[in-house]
């Protein structure tokens, strides 16, 4: 368990460097920007509120390093529907299915820009 904690702390560090996390003894907020901008994964909700431990996802589904999944060609909704990545739980039984409630996870360009602290006008200039 101690090792896991250390890894989690490391992860928090990595994610912070990547500029996509808030503090905490987990990964904070992870903003996926590929294949579409953007999806928010909240460690707060999944770890603090729902009580999952690191292994729940970081034992085969996701690397500890933020952004690693997005490098994979199969990080798509199709994979999720087949039980990959978030789809391992978001299958309609353990958690709501990945092809429902789209805007629950998809924060969009607007949500991502807000997280980056950009204003709406600035957001349209990119």
């Amino acid at each position: 368990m101690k090792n896991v904690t250390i890894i989690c702390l490391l992860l928090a560090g990595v994610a912070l460097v990547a500029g996509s996390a808030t503090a905490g003894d987990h990964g904070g907020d992870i903003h996926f920007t590929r294949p579409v901008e953007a999806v928010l994964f909240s460690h707060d909700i999944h770890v603090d509120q729902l009580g999952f431990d690191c292994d729940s996802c970081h034992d085969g589904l996701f690397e500890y390093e933020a952004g690693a999944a997005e490098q994979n060609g199969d990080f798509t909704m199709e994979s999720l529907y087949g039980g990959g990545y978030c789809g391992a739980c978001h299958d309609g039984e353990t958690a709501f299915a990945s092809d429902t409630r789209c805007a629950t996870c998809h924060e969009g360009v607007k949500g991502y820009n807000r997280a980056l602290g950009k204003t709406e006008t600035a957001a349209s200039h990119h």
Partner: protein
Amino acid sequence: MILKKELDMSRNEGLENLGSEERRHFLKMGLVVTGLFAGGTLLSLSSGARRVFASSGEFAEKYPYKPHYSMLIHVDRCIDCERCKKACAKTNHVPDYGYRTTILERDVSGALAGKREFVPVLCNHCNLPQCTRVCPTRATYKDPVNGIVQMNKSKCIGCLTCQMGCPYNARYFNEEQMAVDKCSFCWESRLSKGEALTACAEACPAGVRIFGDLSDPNDKVYRGIHQIEKTVWVLRPEAGTKPNIFYTRG
């Protein structure tokens, strides 16, 4: 933005406040009004095509244009990736400071959709457009064949009267062209060249924007809007401009 604020309310307010003219208009189109939301801002419609008209052929004739271009927006599928907006800007040379289509965001609490909803908006190519009525030079006009609300930019004097008249905030002043610019359903850039879809509809990865011909009973848009029991609505029906952009969920 007024539109956005008004979209924040979506409680069904009953039908008492709905004018009979409004009801008749939608009935003529084969749609039965089932609910009124946000002081008439959102009008919910359920298809009654079979009840109103004996045959779908007869029904199709009620649409004044051929093709009668229209878009059905599956609002709960939108994820605000804005690929539509980017594709539109690229295709139609829309500058950063303006838009022909954009995405609004509203909070919805307790709804199945989750805590937020993204609402794509664009020119409604209204059947009774306020913009063309107030334009002093007739630079903006409704195409008599396909119903697209167009700009003749050489006639535009930049007075912005059309912009003030539009209830949907669908027009911006293009400084490079020294004229007002707006959505034309990609007529110049795509449809007139034989493409079937607008750039936004083609770019959407989530199947949000269904574009087609409302006068053709075999068209996806027609079928989507006239599904029995399906709730379909328009934005700001109280403005009385008879919009051609429809919204639905599911």
